[in-house]
């Protein structure tokens, strides 16, 4: 396989893996703290992307402002879906399948509202416009300012989130909720408030991930939905509880989708059409053979243990 392709695919792995990490951490966080495998997470990403797109179409070129808008809208949508849908259900002690189904329903509603918006304003396959510059060029490898935004921003956010979880009172309270919600309530942690903050954080970061995603490829109402199972694969590799495991999982998924897929394509003639199946195989294999994922690789004292 040519070196140039290899290098490009590794760059893609870093870029996409960082985005996956940002999204997958949200899924791990919701699953640990809220006890919900949230399939609507995909749509928080898409909503963020559309918010960013609309702001950028209004003439804004500063990526920080664009991402801030995506954060606010993503957080708002996540919080509303919690307050309107998930919180009332949690109160009634329903089965996990009810929660999964309602997360699917929330996703479905958001997705098709976005379809309506995209259709009415002709926003299909538009890219968030920031002036494109080439910042690095070496042979076939071209790095643009999009790469300079996407990868460092998502890595920085992932680090910030880890710091928040490990070093702040809110993070401690979240971990307490993840560990034992009744105990957390007994010792006086404001459970509902912590849950609200969790949703704001999760939705906001998903929104930013959407904005970054929209910088590198076109925005479409399906973009989050298409990525959600890859993201779930990353979270499952992290055992749905370990932060470090999830981040590693995200890069593993991105690596197998990009570099490994190209390798298989070049050396064994595997059609690129099979690429979307890779994260699915990862999910099935991990769930069947190693449901704890990477969790045992890391010191778990600071993780979201259950």
């Amino acid at each position, binding site marked *: 396989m040519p070196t140039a392709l290899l290098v490009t695919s590794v760059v893609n792995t870093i870029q996409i893996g960082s985005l996956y990490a940002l999204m997958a951490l949200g899924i791990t966080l919701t699953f640990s703290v809220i006890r919900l*495998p949230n399939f609507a997470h995909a749509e928080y990403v898409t909503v963020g992307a559309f918010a960013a797109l609309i702001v950028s179409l209004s003439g804004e070129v500063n990526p920080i402002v664009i991402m801030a808008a995506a954060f606010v809208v993503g957080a708002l949508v996540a919080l509303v879906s919690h307050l309107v*849908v998930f919180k*009332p*259900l949690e109160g009634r002690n*329903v089965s*996990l*399948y*009810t929660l*999964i*189904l*309602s997360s*699917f*329903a*929330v996703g*479905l*509603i958001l*997705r*098709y*509202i976005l*379809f*309506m918006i995209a*259709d*009415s304003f002709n926003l299909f396959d538009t890219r968030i416009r920031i002036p494109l510059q080439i910042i690095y060029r070496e042979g076939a490898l071209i790095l643009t300012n999009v790469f300079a935004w996407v990868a460092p921003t998502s890595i920085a956010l992932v680090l910030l989130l880890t710091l928040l979880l490990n070093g702040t009172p809110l993070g401690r309270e979240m971990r307490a909720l993840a560990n034992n919600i009744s105990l957390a309530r007994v010792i006086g942690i404001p459970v509902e408030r912590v849950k609200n903050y969790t949703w704001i954080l999760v939705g906001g970061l998903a929104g930013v991930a959407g904005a970054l995603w929209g910088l590198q490829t076109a925005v479409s109402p399906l973009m989050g939905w298409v990525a959600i*199972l890859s993201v*779930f694969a990353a979270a*499952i590799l992290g055992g749905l509880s370990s932060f470090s495991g999830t981040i590693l999982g995200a890069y593993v998924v991105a690596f197998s989708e990009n570099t490994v897929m190209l390798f298989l394509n070049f050396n064994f003639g595997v*059609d690129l*059409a*099979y690429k*979307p*199946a890779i994260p*699915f*195989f990862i*999910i*099935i294999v991990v*769930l*069947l053979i190693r*449901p704890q994922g990477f969790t045992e690789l890391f010191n778990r004292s600071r993780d979201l243990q259950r």
Partner: protein
Amino acid sequence: MINIDIGATAVAVLTLFGIYSLMAISLNLEYGVAGVPNFGQALFVSIGAYVAGLTYTRLLPLLAGEGVIHPCRGTMGQALQLRSEIMATQPVAGFINLGFTFLFAAVVAGLVGFAVSYVTLRLKEEWFLALVLLVGGEIVRIVVRGADDLICSHNGISGVAQPFYFLDDPRASAVLFMSLALVLAALAYFYSQRLVHSPFGRMLKGLRENEDVTRSLGKGISLARAQIMLIGSVIAAAGGVLFALNTGFVNTNDYVVTLTLDVWVMVVLGGVGNNRGALLGALLIAIMDRITQIAAIALNMSGSPIEFNYARFILFGVILLLMLRYRPQGLLPESPLTTDAHEILRRVRGR
């Protein structure tokens, strides 16, 4: 305004009702009765459709005494023409082909369902099965689409005509096809009613409520789960065959998670654990399907700027959320099972 042909609409809705009923009864047996969270219903439905795609392109010409033309690429049009000609002129070949389609679909789907049930034994948490099934359906879809020559990946197979296509009167053939769908749905319904009211059905409900207790009573739960998955998958695949015949083509794009969710909406709306509920859910969704379609066309023609086609999905999502929150037992709740022994006990106690 658009003219609506009431008769044709009713036939279309009832055909869809028959097809949806098969899918809903299948999911109701699996999830409603036995508690297996089948989030891969699209997989089992798609097996029926893919098998139809294969038999219509490979078996049908042989049955009609013609040579098989490769259905994809350069000879695509030729193969389609041959297929349509056979379906229009040789009804016997069409019927035999359909019989084999049902047979093969049942065998493949049954095997897959049986195999899937053993996956559960190896899973750490119960809800992982939902994820495995969801993802399994997508894998099969991607692999079938990726294998170019199987059912022509992106193009799909068109001309998968229903067996009464040979009749000159399109209305008569539509009515006959509707009857076929309704008869199959009725068979599935009566069969599943018998099953639910049998000792086996009571054991499945026990399995749903508490696995350990059921096991402690000496019931083999993994075999029971395998059996109900097999039965459910066969019914879903039959629905898939009819679904493909009804639209007239087989394309992997139709068998996505959204289809699975549609079936879940039917079961949750009608009543989880109640076969009558599954029928009611299927009927309501078939009607709503048609109404949203007609409304979308009417609105588009009236020059509304908003595309109404998407409203269907939003509507189904809202229905699902409202049902789960306010009436989780469904419109027709499951009634307690009674046996002869219950009846005697009731009489002895005098109430």
